[in-house]
């Protein structure tokens, strides 16, 4: 039985934080098309309020213990399903992040989407997404979670397809939704298993654990499949790059900061339900994803695609951390990643926006090979972008460094001393640590430093767009999360977690690796040619290590590309198969089933024709038939 909630201050706070975005989106939708310019203002203001409230709520929660409310939603077979909310520090800070970043993205979008006709729909969907995301974060009932889980999927679908005249955008949206749907089915089956064995879906409920071990594992795996879909893990990750067809702010909010992170969040939220095997599965999947993502990022030329792959890689890192039991590290990284990746995307958005401003529409503004030397022209963008990139690369004094430290430490302790599969997983973490700086540097170099192909006369984005970038950049400086650059204990008491003592060896090693990576990257990319053609340049072969490394990576990249293609083709194949099979069934419908019925009709008619043919108009043959029938009858009865 579920206790009725007491309507305290923090309750109203929670509720308003949850509802305000919905109000925003509804008000946007209710706005007439011709006063569409109102929509951005309204929603941004409301989001501002929401995020302020979220901050208040965060401190509320972090002071007092965790709060939980629940309302009976409906009863099924005498069991109650409740709309229940559980707020602990993790949740509240996630809420904070979501609202704040959403607000910033709103702000950015005002500038970015200024010329768009469909602002109403755009901001409406953004608001709706925020609402759904918040619901997903807050709810502590798996069914409710699932509902919001699907809703964020829908809003992401709608937002990816925002440029609805663009074929590619729509295809990307459909693909994203379908791949997510596969994951969601997994999630759903997980729910079903939990319900039918324990009769409850409350995350806190101990009954959830009292189900047979096999089914517990199965449920865990199923739910993890949901995570795979939502936060773009191997093998379902390749919708994310395509999703970049959407407006850039959307990519920042949904496909970098919040939605894709939802999976990781869920993993932490229900980590107590997982069995060892599930954890193992999670870790391995994460490690594969993170390496693949990193390598993918290494060979992309579309600025957003690069970021997308890096997102995949980072998500993989987090998932791996979760699987390896590095909960705090993973979560911490999630929060940081939200900031710096959003920042990166906004920066990219600013660049694209700028490129579009100068009307050289013949060249693809997103291709980093067409960019270059923007350092002077877009100073603000450059700085913020650089800071965020540094955070991504995990350079010290940035938030990224801190959380990556944490993960690596926990991984190493988790991996233990004797060799086991865990070592492979752990090593993948190190590999990523090595790869990330390289592609990050490549990105920065190509965009800002290298000699430009074409002369761009571009100027800085408007203030409204600059502010968010700046905020996010500062957000991804280490100061915010830890007062001292290396040591992060202060961050801990912010988020009442208990972190293990940082292993100084690990941090040292990571710093060294990053340094090497940067050096190598600089060495590789500093000359122009690399930009246009393939990566391997003759004098590269000098360095044996790097050479070896390059060959390996090339192979791997081919492999991953192939993998991408494979996955794509598999999915297409499946869809084609379905369609052809569907045609077959349709044919069966028309000819077999109907044909059967018609056949019966025809045969009936045929028999009728025979019986009627007796009546050939000749009376004597009538008589003959009749008497013959009679005789046959007699004979039949007699003998």
């Amino acid at each position: 039985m579920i206790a009725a909630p007491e309507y305290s201050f923090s309750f109203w706070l929670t509720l308003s934080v949850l509802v305000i975005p919905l109000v925003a989106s509804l008000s946007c939708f209710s706005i007439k098309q011709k006063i569409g310019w109102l929509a951005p203002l309204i929603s941004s203001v409301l989001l501002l309020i929401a995020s302020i409230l979220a901050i208040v709520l965060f401190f509320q929660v972090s002071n007092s213990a965790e709060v939980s409310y629940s309302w009976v939603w409906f009863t099924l077979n005498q069991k109650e399903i409740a709309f229940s909310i559980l707020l602990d520090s993790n949740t509240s800070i996630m809420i904070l992040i979501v609202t704040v970043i959403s607000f910033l993205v709103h702000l950015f979008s005002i500038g970015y989407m200024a010329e768009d006709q469909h602002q109403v729909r755009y901001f409406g969907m953004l608001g709706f997404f925020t609402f759904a995301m918040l619901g997903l974060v807050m709810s502590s009932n798996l069914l409710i979670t699932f509902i919001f889980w699907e809703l964020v999927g829908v809003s992401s679908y709608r937002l990816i397809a925002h440029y609805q005249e663009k074929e590619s955008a729509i295809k990307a949206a459909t693909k994203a939704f379908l791949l997510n749907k596969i994951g969601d089915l997994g999630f759903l089956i997980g729910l079903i298993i939990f319900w039918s064995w324990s009769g409850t879906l409350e995350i806190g409920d101990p009954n959830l654990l009292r189900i047979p071990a096999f089914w517990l594992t199965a449920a865990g795996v199923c739910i993890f499949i949901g995570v795979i879909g939502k936060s773009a893990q191997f093998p379902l990750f390749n919708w994310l790059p395509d999703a970049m067809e959407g407006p850039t702010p959307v990519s920042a909010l949904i496909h970098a900061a919040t939605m894709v992170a939802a999976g990781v969040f869920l993993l932490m939220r229900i980590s107590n339900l997982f069995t060892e095997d599930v954890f193992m599965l999670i870790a391995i999947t994460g490690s594969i994803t993170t390496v693949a993502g990193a390598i993918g990022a290494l060979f992309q030329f579309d600025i957003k695609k690069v970021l997308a792959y890096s997102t995949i890689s980072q998500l993989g890192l987090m998932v791996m951390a979760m699987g390896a039991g590095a909960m705090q590290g993973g979560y911490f990284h999630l929060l940081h990643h939200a900031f710096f990746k959003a920042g990166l995307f906004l920066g990219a958005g600013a660049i694209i926006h700028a490129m579009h401003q100068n009307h050289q529409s013949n060249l693809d503004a997103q291709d980093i090979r067409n960019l270059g030397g923007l350092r002077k022209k877009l100073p603000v963008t450059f700085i913020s972008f650089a800071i965020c990139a540094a955070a991504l690369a995990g350079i010290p004094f940035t938030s990224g460094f801190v959380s990556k430290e944490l993960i690596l430490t926990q991984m190493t302790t988790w991996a233990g001393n004797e060799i086991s599969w865990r070592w492979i997983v752990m090593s993948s973490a190190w590999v990523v640590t090595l790869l990330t700086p390289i592609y990050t540097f490549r990105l920065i170099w190509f965009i800002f430093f290298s000699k430009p192909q074409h002369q761009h006369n571009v100027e800085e984005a408007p203030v409204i767009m600059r502010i968010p970038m700046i905020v996010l950049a500062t957000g991804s400086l280490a100061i915010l999360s830890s007062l001292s650059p290396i040591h992060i204990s202060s961050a801990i008491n912010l988020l009442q977690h208990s972190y293990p003592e940082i292993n100084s060896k690990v941090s040292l090693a990571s710093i060294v690796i990053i340094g090497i990576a940067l050096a190598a990257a600089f060495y590789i990319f500093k000359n122009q040619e690399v930009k246009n053609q393939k990566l391997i340049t003759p004098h590269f072969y000098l360095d044996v290590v790097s050479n070896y490394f390059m060959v390996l990576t090339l192979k791997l990249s081919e492999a991953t590309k192939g993998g991408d293609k494979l996955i794509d083709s598999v999915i297409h194949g499946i869809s084609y198969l379905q369609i052809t099979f569907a045609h077959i069934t349709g044919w069966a419908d028309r000819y077999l089933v109907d044909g059967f019925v018609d056949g019966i009709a025809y045969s009936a008619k045929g028999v009728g024709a025979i019986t009627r043919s007796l009546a050939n108009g000749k009376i004597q043959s009538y008589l003959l038939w009749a008497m013959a029938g009679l005789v046959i009858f007699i004979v039949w009865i007699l003998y």
Partner: protein
Amino acid sequence: MYLLSLLIFIPIGTALLALLIPSRLASSFRSIALGVSIVQVIILLLILSQYNYEGGFHLIEKIPWISIDLGSWGLLQAEYFVALDGLSLSMVALSVFILLIATISSWTIEKNRKGYFILLLILNGAIIGSFCALDFLLFYVFFEFMLLPMYFLIGIWGGVKREYASIKFFLYTLLGSILILIVIVALYISVKTPESSDRIVHTFNVLHMQDVNNLIPNSLLSLDSTKLLGSFSFRYWAFLLLFIGFIIKLPAVPFHTWLPDAHVEAPTPISVILAALLLKFGAYGLLRFAYPIFPDAAIHFSWFVGLIGLISIIYGALNALSSKDLKRLIAYSSVSHMGFVLLGIASATVEGITGAVYQMFSHGIISAMLFLIAGVLYDRTGDRMIGNYSGLASKMRNYSAFVLIAFFASMGLPGFAGFMGEVMIFFGAFQSSTVNGLIPTWMAITATLGLLLGAAYYLWTIQRMFYGPFSVKNVTSDLTDLDSREYIMLLPLALAALVFGVLPQLLLNYINPFASEFVNNLFQSGNVLTP
């Protein structure tokens, strides 16, 4: 206060009176029909106000109707026996609502209004009557009574191939009802009223039929009869006949092929009624007659029933995926969704049954919306081919907003009524193997593919028809957005789909008691399997 009788006979009576009105006043007929529907809504509200949430039957009206002396076999007794329980109440409510919408959407009918609306009114009465009837003969009469109006409504006001479609519809359904009739005959002969003394009183009363104590000893349908036909006892045969008779109406694979044709050819209001109400009789019949009367057979065949449901889900979805005609696609999606209902029924768990009823209700609302949407487009262009449209969203903004809502609702998006029903059905179907061991787990798991396929064909349709650059093949008339009448039709449906998705308890209050009673009766009435 004969509310039910009023609900049933007001439309029929009005139809008979309307026969007298000269056809010159053609325009008056639609307002008459609308008036009737509104009156019905009022009556429905009265009923809801009187109805309390306990299980069992309410608003019982019982009048002796036919009583024939069968000589030495005793007495044949049929009653006018109508009442409401959770199941029939939800169905009646749905019917009244949908019929109102359908009447509004019939506003544009030009050809021979008098005949149209009279038939519509008769259909109206028959539908509600057969949802209320608790006397098998009465039910059958109302059930047959629906056929002819439907036949003519499709056949006269339908599309190009209307004759073929109407004949096909009529014959399929009649075949089904004949199978049902066989069982009715067999049943009333082997059932007696409990109060019948030495003179046996054969009754059509369903409640009596459901009680195994009323079976006449060593009649063919009695529990102890050892006579076999082929390898099954007569009870099993009777159940199978009822089952087939009803799933023809449902429709389930392989008896579904009448549905696409009927839908494609029928005028919009009629396909709304067909999809939203008439299909429900399949499931309703199973829940009201087949299962409670033959619980043993039902349990024996539940695996088979579940399989049929599963096949319908997948097969219907695949067909929808392949169909080029919008209405045909929607029709096949109906097949798929009613397959879920069948699966829920087969599971015979409380969740499953609840879900099945909920799904019936939600599918009623959503499919009505879908067909209205198809109709809107058809009114504009007279063309339903998906391939001929592209990028409608940019031309008809509000319309495509509604399309999006309807499609997402139909593909089982949370927050819409469809999702609740389906998820409950999944709960039931999955735990059936542990609760009563009727249908295996893999059925439930495979059935979830239906959701994926559903998403696939709807999204694909959206992608082809509504997004992308705007272009419309072989259409001259410019596409105007929704007008106010269409808003009046679509908005309530959309709201209903939303409300029942967000506040399921509104409906569950009525369904829950029914479902639990249903399952109890199924298992307590002296037969083998018990959880």
